[in-house]
C-alpha cells in the first residue's frame, strides 16, 4: 500500500473532455478523458480512484483503469447502476466532466518485485486491477510469475475480453477465466474463482496477492489463499465503501479507525482482517 501526494486543491474539480466512450457489456462502459486546463499530465498510481463529477447529476468515486504510463489520458470503467452512473453511460466525445483526484492508496506492485504476483479479480473488480496489470506487464522481468485469475457472472459479462486474450497469449503470464454459469456454446471454465486459486501455479511463501471484486468474493478468495499458506500480510484487497469527500473529512466511508477513501481503498489484509469480522462495519 503506497500513498501519493494529494492534488493542490483536492476539493476543486478540474475540467476534462470525453475523448471516447465504449460499451464493454450490456451495462458497463469505459470512457477516456483528457484535461482541458492545459495540464497534460495526470499522474496516478495503480489502484487509486478519482471523484468524477457529471455536472447536474452528481459526483461518484471511480477507480482509474488506464495505463499509468499514459498519464495524459485518464480511463475509467463504470457500471450503470444508479442515476449518476447511468448518465455517465451516455457520455459522448466532447462532453465535459469534472475530476477530483487521484485519491487513496495503490497496489504494492513495486513491493512484489522478485516474487510471484497473483491477481484475483471478480466482475467489475478487474477494472481497478487493470492499471496494476499494465504496470506489472511493463516490468515483467522483475517478477518470477504473473498469474491473472478472473471470475465473471457469465461469458457476456466478461470485461476487457480482448485484453484478457492477449494477456493469456503473452509468454510468462498465466491468465485463467471462469464464469458462474454459461450456455453450452462456452468453451471455457464454469465454476467459482476459488477453484482457479486452488489450481494456479504460484509459491504461497513468495507471492503478493491483489484482490478486487464484490466483498463476498474477496472473502472467499482470501480464505482460499490462506488455506494454501499465503500470509495475511501478502494479501491486498481493494475495499468499496460510500466515499463522498475522498479526503477523510466527511466520514461516509469510515471503516473502524480507517477511512477507505484516504487509508484505502487498497489495504493489506492483515490490517483489516479483524474489522471485516465486525458485523456493524
Amino acid at each position: 500500500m503506497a500513498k501519493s501526494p494529494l492534488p493542490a486543491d483536492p476539493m476543486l474539480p478540474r475540467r476534462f473532455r470525453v475523448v471516447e466512450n465504449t460499451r464493454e457489456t450490456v451495462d458497463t462502459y469505459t470512457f477516456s478523458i483528457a484535461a482541458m486546463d492545459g495540464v497534460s499530465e495526470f499522474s496516478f498510481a495503480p489502484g487509486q480512484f478519482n471523484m468524477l463529477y457529471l455536472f447536474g447529476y452528481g459526483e461518484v468515486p471511480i477507480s482509474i483503469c488506464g495505463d499509468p504510463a499514459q498519464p495524459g489520458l485518464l480511463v475509467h470503467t463504470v457500471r450503470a447502476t444508479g442515476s449518476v452512473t447511468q448518465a455517465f453511460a451516455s457520455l459522448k466525445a466532447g462532453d465535459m466532466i469534472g475530476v477530483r483526484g487521484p485519491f487513496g492508496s495503490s497496489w504494492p506492485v513495486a513491493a512484489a518485485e522478485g516474487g510471484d504476483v497473483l491477481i484475483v479479480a471478480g466482475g467489475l473488480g478487474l477494472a481497478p486491477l487493470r492499471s496494476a496489470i499494465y504496470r506489472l506487464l511493463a516490468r515483467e522481468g522483475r517478477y518470477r510469475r504473473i498469474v491473472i485469475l478472473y471470475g465473471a457472472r457469465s461469458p457476456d459479462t466478461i470485461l476487457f475480453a480482448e485484453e484478457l486474450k492477449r494477456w493469456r497469449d503473452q509468454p510468462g503470464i498465466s491468465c485463467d477465466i471462469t464464469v458462474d454459469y454459461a450456455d453450452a456454446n462456452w468453451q471455457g471454465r464454469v465454476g467459482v474463482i476459488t477453484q482457479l486459486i486452488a489450481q494456479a501455479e504460484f509459491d504461497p511463501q513468495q507471492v503478493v496477492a491483489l484482490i478486487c471484486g464484490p466483498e463476498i468474493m474477496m472473502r472467499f478468495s482470501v480464505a482460499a489463499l490462506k488455506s494454501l499458506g499465503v500470509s495475511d500480510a501478502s494479501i491486498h484487497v481493494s475495499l468499496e465503501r460510500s466515499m463522498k469527500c475522498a479526503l477523510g473529512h466527511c466520514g461516509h466511508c469510515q471503516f473502524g479507525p480507517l477511512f477507505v477513501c484516504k487509508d484505502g481503498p487498497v489495504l493489506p489484509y492483515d490490517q483489516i482482517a479483524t474489522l471485516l469480522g465486525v458485523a456493524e462495519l
Partner: protein
Amino acid sequence: MAKKDLEEIIAQEPFFRGLNADFCKTIARCGKHVRFDKGQIIYRQGDPADTFYVIRHGYVALEFPGGGRAMVHQTLHDGDLANAEWLVAPYRCLWDARAVAATVAIALDAACLRGKCDDDHDLGYELMKRFVPLVVERLSHAKLQALDVYGEGSTT
C-alpha cells in the same frame, strides 16, 4: 490396460492419495479405462448413477438440460470427479455430463464399489473421508454461484 496398471494409476490420482495398496487393488477391480470424444454425452439427467468417473485428462461440462438451451453450472478438469450421485439413493444422475474436449477417465462401477464398501467398512470410511469434503466443497461453490455476487447492483 491391465488391472495392475489401473491400480497404480488410481494410487497416483490426487483424490485417492493416501489409500493403502489393498484398497487401491479393490477399487481397481471395479474400474476400467474409458475415453469420450468431443461432444459425447457421458450420462444424462435421470440415468442410473451406476458409474462415477475420475477424469485423468480432458474437460467435461455438467449441464442442466431444458428449454432447448442447456445451462452449464460446472466444468470438470484433470483430477476432478464426475457423478458423486453414485453415493446416495436413489442413485440417479442429477444433470447431463458432456465431454467438451476429448476426455480420458477411469470409470468405476458404482454397484461393485458400493458392495465392496458394504463388505469392508474401512474401505467405505476411507472413501467417505474423500467424498464428503468434495460434496461440501461443491455445495459451498453452488451457494456462492447462487448468491450471484457479480449480478445486478454490484458495482465492483
